């Protein structure tokens, strides 16, 4: 499952790909079986995105691909050649010196206990905020309201529904909802 080092010449089962990770182009030779999650963690040493279930069921591996949230454990790195990837390591501002307001809100609200799900929660919430701002509905959005032109207002029900792809074994859900509410106010 791991990118081999030193990289073997590309053959039928390996390819060279370039991912722009947190703004920096990274060239890799990957075994085709390598998921984005393993490429980030094992190949690039970016261990922020976590492996919880490895089957799309928990959201711990959530990163942003071309600005959209996705489960890195089900994406093959070879299929993402040329894509922009943002991991939790790339969320803080000024080269990591200044926390993103959402990160600060997680701290202020005590929105985690063990923290294992937190990188995924943060990336998922960032993706989710962009989706709502673009007017994307969720199951909590009234289907009888005419298609929204602008942003969907994020009630606690909306936040819970839109964040349901991120499980928290420690049950920090109420504080996660509050932290997200803090950044939309």
């Amino acid at each position: 499952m791991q990118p081999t080092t030193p990289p073997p010449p590309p053959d039928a089962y390996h390819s060279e790909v370039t991912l722009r990770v947190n703004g920096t182009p990274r060239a890799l030779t990957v075994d085709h079986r390598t998921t984005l999650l393993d490429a980030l963690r094992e190949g690039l040493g970016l261990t922020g995105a976590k492996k919880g279930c490895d089957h799309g069921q928990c959201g711990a591996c959530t990163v942003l691909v071309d600005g959209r949230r996705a489960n890195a454990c089900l994406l093959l790195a070879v299929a993402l050649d040329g894509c922009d990837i943002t991991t939790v390591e790339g969320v803080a501002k000024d080269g990591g010196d200044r926390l993103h307001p959402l990160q600060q809100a997680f701290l202020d609200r005590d929105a985690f206990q063990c923290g294992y799900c937190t990188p995924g929660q943060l990336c998922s919430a960032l993706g989710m905020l962009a989706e709502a701002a673009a007017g994307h509905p969720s199951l909590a959005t009234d289907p009888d309201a005419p298609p929204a032109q602008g942003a969907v207002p994020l009630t606690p029900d909306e936040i819970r529904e839109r964040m349901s792809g991120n499980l928290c074994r420690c049950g920090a859900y109420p504080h996660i909802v509050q932290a997200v509410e803090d950044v939309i106010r």
Partner: protein
Amino acid sequence: MRPFAYVRARTVQEATAAHAAHPGARYLAGGTNLVDLMKLGVEAPETLVDVTRLPLDAVEELPDGGLRVGATVRNSDLAAHPLVRDRYAAVSRALLSGASGQLRNTATTGGNLLQRTRCPYFQDLTKPCNKRAPGSGCGARDGVHRDHAVLGHSYLCIATHPSDLAVALAALDAEVELHGPDGERTVPVADFHRLPGDHPELDTVIQPGELITAVTLPAATAGLPSAYRKARDRASYAFALVSVAAVLDLDEHGAVRHLGLAFGGLAHRPWRARRAEAALLGATPTAENVARAVAAELDAAEPLRDNAYKVPLAHRLAGAVIGGLAGTHRT
């Protein structure tokens, strides 16, 4: 996982040609089902033909008022599309009730229809399963089958099809466009998935190498009131125990001019309830009439030891959805 070759197709012709040239090839779309099954060892392709960069990622309005949805349109984009929300509400609602925000961003229209069953025996190589290993037996029949089929199952397989989208598309008379080595053809979504019969290894009527290029939504059901409702074990991010999609058109006297009704979670394919539809045609959709019509459909149910609860659940869900569309019942 077995090593595999990877081909990125740029055109439909390139994709089908690459599939034909590589025995043991599979198309790769979002990968949210295929990569999962490869990790489990259920799928072991020798080559993946990546179709995500084909020019099939648009929702086009057809001259007659229908919509043509490209096979690689992501589930989240389809659910949010203004014309889909406006004309085919059930499609948007079905998509939004499936999986998670992350998964919907990756999953595609074509891949969603072709996802495999979530039967736990199918996903476990150490268990018997006629769908995965024909002739090995069905672990679910006398095992854990609370989530399994009550309609149209066979002695060999009692699995259900897990897609929410397919149920809404079946109710709305959508069609699947296929592009294969022998040319193009179109199949109604309601006939695309099979009943298990003697060949549970075949989920659909798709032929080896055929590529889904699009799904078309017909003008006939555009703009009619439609809805989707799903019962599940948790409030979000869970597969359906039972789901219902319906589209309803009433005439000026309040009688049913058209009803499309389909159930999810009950069978090996979206269950288009033709008998219930026929029973309601021309009738007023009162609670009694709806209950009688749905009962006529569900009379055929043959529940297993642990899933008889699905029959009354389906009955009540259908009553609520049709009643909601007719304005006689608030869903």
